[in-house]
């Protein structure tokens, strides 16, 4: 694809099934009813000049450039605000229109700098383009009058500038902030000639405003008023390549706009089915880590972790590693070896890592970060629905009438989807939020939850069961759906259970801290408010009863008939970009790709025949069990691709002990992450910009990742894994990820219809994609559940063993913030740190006052597991008795405090409930001091030896 802006049709696409035929400039055209004249013209080959119109927001009708003549109509109406009518005859270009448009353009240009040659938007400016289109040759008014040309530029945002001297006050930025992003940070301040775009109050600049830097305003701006600093620095892009974001599970697609091999900017792709042309601050701007000075591009080895790293050639690194692996295997057996696949890497890379572990190492000790996030989703939805993937596509939210958000904070963790959800809420859908914190969705501009259930952390099952109690006892369930789609006897058993008095909101109020009346009202709304859609996140899964809570959610959706059509469903919001794909590719220790158990001889034989090996017949170790086994001495070596378990996994001391006990830790990553402090081999990785492959997002959508620059380390990650496999003794010879996709399709029924070529043709597809579903599957369980009947499961509330008491009287829960991602390895190495440069501890004013804290004070956060220090933020966003922090910064290491307790079914850690005490502190904890020393020593690199190659 060469560089050209994506076609802009001026106004949104009409969804009407009714067709209207009209004539435009003598051409008979047929378009859906509700289409604007502007769009009808653009869709049929005739663009009408425009400035204030753009197709991802409603028509505004202010610029008066898109005027047309319509037979029988008076005047010259704006084509953007005029809908097509049957038989309408439109003229878009007449002498009268020419004159009018030129006059309008003259007025615009009379207050616009004529610096096109030095302007950063030169040749990529709609104002410039439209001036040319209307034939502007002169400005009769001169430039001597009042103007805005001397207004200063606001450089405060790290990623874009606001130059009001170039603003034409078309309001596209303001409308983008309102309609697309839903933040309402911008406004037009003043009247008439004094009208100006403003980010908040007079004294606010963009950085100080409520702007969330999603980039929608920059994308919408038709001039250089709002423009990326990178474009100013580098120049106009010369080509664009569509690829998929490597941050959260939404899976936004972007045009990587390039000059040579230099990335100029990432612009959301309007045809992207997950993001529909929108973006967030991470995907849009936070890619600078790819060229950060911390990036390691040469392999390194060391014999022990107290030595400095030694840069070596790839050959030496791989030879050293293979020798160690073979030696450990000879001494301790294959089951002493294992690996962790990365949810940030492609499907093809993940597939190869599990293949390496199973077929080359010879054991099934492979796991992935889903272990610590959504593994309970897998267990819970599989038990109830028969298949565990999210049931809907993201578009589905636009058909929802009642949206229930449980244990998720979409505006921070899945911001692009949150913007769509907020758009639906502004249209009138009702919102129920179940979360210990008053997240932004509870109340933000033009959004207010109908009900917020601020439950006590650890009581999800109790709250969900009490909702079910109301639905059953008040007979609000959908009997027809249940009889058709589920087993009635199982429903009956479940209904009897939830109807017990001990499951009533009134009885459980003492446990959940949620007023019974609020629970009753929320239950009634969900059951009777129309299409009910549930979205949930790690606040559901990361508990000792994570799997049970997922089942309670599924029970509720089935009982109310909210499954199997657009606008309803059960939707896990997955954390990392390819966590769904990593699971699909066989990253769990008990199953091969396609969710087939390793015990199954027939399945094994398919892989054994294709791979030419004999597979271990028993499940392998999960991540926490690998660490236990390492401490016990039976697990000796691990290959970790693109994960930082030391920072992300619970009970950091135990993780460190496990890693330290291993003979060989191989870290394959972009940076010397925290886990690498305990590594013996470092294999440099490649970024998503440097590789080909596919990611699968939270809606099961498989999307292409395309290489836009050569890997700084020399190899894509799948190539590194292949080189390692071959060094250990395999004979792999893939030359492109498309061959790995072929192998996946050949061996995995749910991907049988997938190929790189097909994906490039259709853009994306939601699995299953095979003979039965050649076009993929946007909504699941439409005709019935994947495995026959939906299953109601009795879920008894079992309180966590993590209890508060006199020593640890507060409950800590952890989460994310908008500008940072996971352990921060990427985002901490971008300008996103201007918004969040340290983890802070949110504390309710009452708890703060009792302990003598004010915002900014240092506090020691201590649990039974460990302690750390961080600054306090006093806020009533958290309830009394609850404190909250993020885990983005290794200097804090929030997981020093979290415990080994985990979900009963999947061992997903109980990050969301830790009993803690908080007390004043005047410095870092002993752990932090020791760790800082270790991290510094561990990152020494001896570069004296030149690589052999």
């Amino acid at each position: 694809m060469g560089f050209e802006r994506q076609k802009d049709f001026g106004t949104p696409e009409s969804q009407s099934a009714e067709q209207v035929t009209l004539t435009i400039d003598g051409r008979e055209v047929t378009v859906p009813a509700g289409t604007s004249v502007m769009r009808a013209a653009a869709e049929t080959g005739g663009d009408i000049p425009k400035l204030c119109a753009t197709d991802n927001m409603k028509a505004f009708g202010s610029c008066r450039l898109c005027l047309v003549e319509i037979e029988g109509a008076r005047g010259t109406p704006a084509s953007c605000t005029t809908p097509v009518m049957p038989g309408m005859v439109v003229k878009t270009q007449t002498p009268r229109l020419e004159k009018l448009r030129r006059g309008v353009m003259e007025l615009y240009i009379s207050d616009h700098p004529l610096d096109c040659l030095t302007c950063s938007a030169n040749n990529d400016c709609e104002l410039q383009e439209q001036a040319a289109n209307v034939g502007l040759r002169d400005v009769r008014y001169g430039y001597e009058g009042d103007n805005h040309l001397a207004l200063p530029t606001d450089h405060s945002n790290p990623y874009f500038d606001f130059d009001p001297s170039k603003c034409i006050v078309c309001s596209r930025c303001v409308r983008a902030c309102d309609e697309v992003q839903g933040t309402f940070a911008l406004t037009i301040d003043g009247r008439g000639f004094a009208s100006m775009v403003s980010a908040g109050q007079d004294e606010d600049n963009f950085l100080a405003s409520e702007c969330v830097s999603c980039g929608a305003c920059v994308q919408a701006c038709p001039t250089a008023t709002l423009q990326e600093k990178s474009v100013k620095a580098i120049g106009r892009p010369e080509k664009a390549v569509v690829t998929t974001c490597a941050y959260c599970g939404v899976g936004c697609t972007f045009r990587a706009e390039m000059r040579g091999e230099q990335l100029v900017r990432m612009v959301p792709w309007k045809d992207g089915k997950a993001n529909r042309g929108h973006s967030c601050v991470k995907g849009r701007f936070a890619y600078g880590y790819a060229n950060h000075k911390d990036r390691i591009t040469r392999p390194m080895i060391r014999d022990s972790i107290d030595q400095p790293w030694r840069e070596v050639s790839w050959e030496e690194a791989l030879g050293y590693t293979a020798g160690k692996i073979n030696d450990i295997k000879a001494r301790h057996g294959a089951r002493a070896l294992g690996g962790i696949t990365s949810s940030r890497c492609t499907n093809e890379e993940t597939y190869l890592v599990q293949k390496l572990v199973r077929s080359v190492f010879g054991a099934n000790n492979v796991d992935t970060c889903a272990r610590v996030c959504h593994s309970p989703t897998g267990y819970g939805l599989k038990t109830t629905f028969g298949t565990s993937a999210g049931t809907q596509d993201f578009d589905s939210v636009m058909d929802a009438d009642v949206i229930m958000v449980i244990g998720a904070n979409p505006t921070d963790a899945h911001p692009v989807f949150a913007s769509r959800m907020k758009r639906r809420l502004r249209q009138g859908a009702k919102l129920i939020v179940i979360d210990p914190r008053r997240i932004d969705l509870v109340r933000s501009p033009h959004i207010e939850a109908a009900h917020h259930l601020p439950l006590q952390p650890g009581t999800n099952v109790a709250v969900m069961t009490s909702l079910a109690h109301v639905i059953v006892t008040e007979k609000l369930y959908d009997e027809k759906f249940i009889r058709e789609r589920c087993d009635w006897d199982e429903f009956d058993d479940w209904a009897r259970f939830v109807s017990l008095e001990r499951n009533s909101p009134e009885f459980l109020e003492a446990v959940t801290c949620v007023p019974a009346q609020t629970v009753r009202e929320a239950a009634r709304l969900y059951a009777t408010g129309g299409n009910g859609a549930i979205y949930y996140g790690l606040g559901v899964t990361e508990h000792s009863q994570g799997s049970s809570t997922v089942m309670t959610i599924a029970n509720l959706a089935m009982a109310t008939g909210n499954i199997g059509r657009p606008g309803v469903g059960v939707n896990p919001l997955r954390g990392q970009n390819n966590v769904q794909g990593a699971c699909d590719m066989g990253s769990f220790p008990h199953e091969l790709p396609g969710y087939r158990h390793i015990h199954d001889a027939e399945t094994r034989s398919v892989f054994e025949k294709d791979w030419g090996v004999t597979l271990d017949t028993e499940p392998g170790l999960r991540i926490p069990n690998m660490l236990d086994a390492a401490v016990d001495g039976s697990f000796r070596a691990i290959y970790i691709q693109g994960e930082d378990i030391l920072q992300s996994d619970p009970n950091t001391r135990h993780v460190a002990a496990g890693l330290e006990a291993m003979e060989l830790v191989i870290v394959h990553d972009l940076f010397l992450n925290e886990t690498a402090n305990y590594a013996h081999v470092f294999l440099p990785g490649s970024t998503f910009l440097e590789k080909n492959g596919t990611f699968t997002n939270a809606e099961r959508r498989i999307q292409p990742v395309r290489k836009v620059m050569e890997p700084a380390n020399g190899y894509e990650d799948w190539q590194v894994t292949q080189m390692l496999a071959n060094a250990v003794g395999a004979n792999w010879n893939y030359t492109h990820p498309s061959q790995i996709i072929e192998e996946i399709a050949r061996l995995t029924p749910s991907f049988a219809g997938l190929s790189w070529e097909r994906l490039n043709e259709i853009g994306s597809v939601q699995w299953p994609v095979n003979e039965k579903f050649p076009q993929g599957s946007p909504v699941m369980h439409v005709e019935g559940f994947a495995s026959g009947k939906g299953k109601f499961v009795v879920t008894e509330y079992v309180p966590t063993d993590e209890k508060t008491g006199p020593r640890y009287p507060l409950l800590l829960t952890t989460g994310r913030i908008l500008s940072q991602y996971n352990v921060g390895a990427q985002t901490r190495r971008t300008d996103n740190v201007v918004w969040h440069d340290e983890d802070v501890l949110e504390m309710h004013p009452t708890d703060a006052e009792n302990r003598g804290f004010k915002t900014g004070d240092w506090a020691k956060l201590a649990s039974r597991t460990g302690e750390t220090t961080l600054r306090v933020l006093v806020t009533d966003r958290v309830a009394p008795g609850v404190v909250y922090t993020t885990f983005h910064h290794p200097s804090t290491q929030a997981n020093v405090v979290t415990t080994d307790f985990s979900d009963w079914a999947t061992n997903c850690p109980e990050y969301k409930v830790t009993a803690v005490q908080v007390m004043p502190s005047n410095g870092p904890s002993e752990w932090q001091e020791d760790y800082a020393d270790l991290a510094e020593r561990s990152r020494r690199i001896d570069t004296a030896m030149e690589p052999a190659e």
Partner: protein
Amino acid sequence: MSSTVETLRRMAGDIARNFAAMGHEKAVLATADHIYQFWDPRMKAAIFADDHSHLSPIARDAIEYLQTGSHPASQTRATEFNSVDEVGHSDAG
């Protein structure tokens, strides 16, 4: 006793506790099924060798059932996996 054995006891106990609503006999089978399908051999061996008096009755009976070399058929849909040519199930995490 290693901390690993303590962890395994807790894991077995948690599984048993969450199946308890099924009634003792079914819960024993479900617990045994879960451990059979998801635990690595060394984990099973360690808990077999452990003193079972520390386990809850359901967990104990499940471990002793597995120790005889038996394993139950799938007791929940979580342990029904796709057959070789099947598409239906998944347990994406």
